[in-house]
């Protein structure tokens, strides 16, 4: 898949070394897991299959040359046109790298790597990574809460920001304002 995110002129856009290296190691270790990758532009990412996500994450976390020890952000993006939901993971590395490695990454302005998983919209199930990075726990709960991605294999996927009985997942593109909530009428923003 090609991405048109780059708009910096006619010359060949520079490849992102951080993503390239992660990609090479991932392809070597789990060739089936990687679906696609974009290694240029402002937002390079590696797309993996839902089944291969956990393997990919464990590799990214534990491989001596990668050591992404923190899951910075989990995002769900609803794509009704493709009947898909993208789940994006942004991974960073803080602690376990030796100092010179810090520097090497710092040369590339944004030393992070992004993983993408695309799942069908009617069955948005993604294996959890909260057992890989504990910090992903709350992010997954929020993604479930607002976008409705079901993370499997983890305990108690509860809503985190909205009330337990809130109807639907508001960041789905086809979500509609409820008429009322517990007897309190809700005025949608257009009507205000």
């Amino acid at each position: 898949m090609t991405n048109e995110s780059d708009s910096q002129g006619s010359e060949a856009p520079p490849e992102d070394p951080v993503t390239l290296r992660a990609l090479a190691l991932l392809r070597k270790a789990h060739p089936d897991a990687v679906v696609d990758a974009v290694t240029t532009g402002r937002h390079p990412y590696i797309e993996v299959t839902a089944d291969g996500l956990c393997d990919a994450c464990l590799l990214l976390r534990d491989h001596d040359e990668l050591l992404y020890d923190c899951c910075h952000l989990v995002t769900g993006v609803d794509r009704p046109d493709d009947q898909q939901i993208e789940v994006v993971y942004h991974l960073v590395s803080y602690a376990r790298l030796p100092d010179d490695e810090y520097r090497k990454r710092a040369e590339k302005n944004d030393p992070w790597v992004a993983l993408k998983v695309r799942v069908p919209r009617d069955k948005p199930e993604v294996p959890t990574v909260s057992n890989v990075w504990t910090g992903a726990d709350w992010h997954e709960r929020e993604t479930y809460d607002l976008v409705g991605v079901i993370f499997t294999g983890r305990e108690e996927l509860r809503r985190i920001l909205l009330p337990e009985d809130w109807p639907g997942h508001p960041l789905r593109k086809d979500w509609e304002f409820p008429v009322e909530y517990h007897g309190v009428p809700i005025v949608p923003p257009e009507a205000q």
Partner: protein
Amino acid sequence: MSPRAESTSTGEVHEGQPLVGRDLRTEELVFNMGPQHPATHGVLRVVIKSDGEVVRSLEPHIGNLHRSSEKIGEELPYYQWLPYVDRWDYLAAMNNEHVACMAIERLGGLEVPERAEYIRIIVAEVQRILSHLMAIGVYGLDLGAFTPFLHQFRERERGLDLLDHIAGARLLYHYVRIGGVKRDVSKEWIDELEVFLDAVEKRLPDYNTLLLHNHIFQERTCGIGVIDREVAVRWGVTGPALRAAGVSWDTRRDAPYSIYDRFEFDVPVGPSPIAGVAGDCFARHWLRVREVTESVKIVRQALGQMPEGPVMARVPKSYKPPVGEVYVRGENPRGELATYMVSEGKDRAYRIRCRGPSFSNIAVITEVSEGLLLGDLVAMIGSLDIVLGEVDR
């Protein structure tokens, strides 16, 4: 016993059984700390299971301040959405604006004038000073020392006046705009700013006498609520809490954004040389105090280097960045604020996702608070310095 027996840790006593000894059945006491509680810094609700004063387990409940700013961002044009950004971390509005504007500008490949970059750095660092002053003072309040809290307001007031002068508001500025800043700063304003910096530097030792070097303060914070390196990184804790744990990471230095690579400043790392261990409450407090001086340094350097010129780039009235995504990280006073933005070529974002640092910073208390006393828990939550606006967004 009275029917209220369940509200005490003693539990009910069965008839004919001895009062003490192995037959005494004790129950855990379940507390609801918050959403209206003085020490939860807003509307955090923590359900505590405790054995008398000792916390056995707890669970934070968030969402009371959820204002759906991500959803609003999908409904409004970029420039109209920008004021909502201020309300994430309402004590660091300038820093929020800075990161959000960087993301929007990077989506469209917009260049910001040199002078505007400098002004952004200056206001962001002034905001960091103000936010840290607040954190330092409020931490005293959490531990029962009221005076430093009011003392810091004297300096904070000056800083707020400064930002008020250029932005027209005291807390939520909407000053950093897409393509630059709202208006230029004057010579007089810069003079005032220097007075403010001097005042902060002069007063900081006073606060340290009241808190940092106080014996009771050290007893309350040293070795309490330790978040070590491994736990901090695994939970995604960032900012002063991460550095206090001994991880030398400051996004301003290690992944420089804007023009932070032009300034010389230290990144203090825990443990504090004064007392305590890495990652304890004391280290976090000490780190904030140190960071105030570093921010003062940055502002002074920025004032020295600042060129003349325009403060606003030419931005089309209807700003429509091309299809694409960006992920922008910035160092807020409370940690790393990151924004993931997806554009579909419209005048509004297709998807906005904000990573509030407090969100991850507060999640960690579920793991590290077991066995703390109730007073320690307050010290712990206070030292993480969370802002609920950012947790719930």
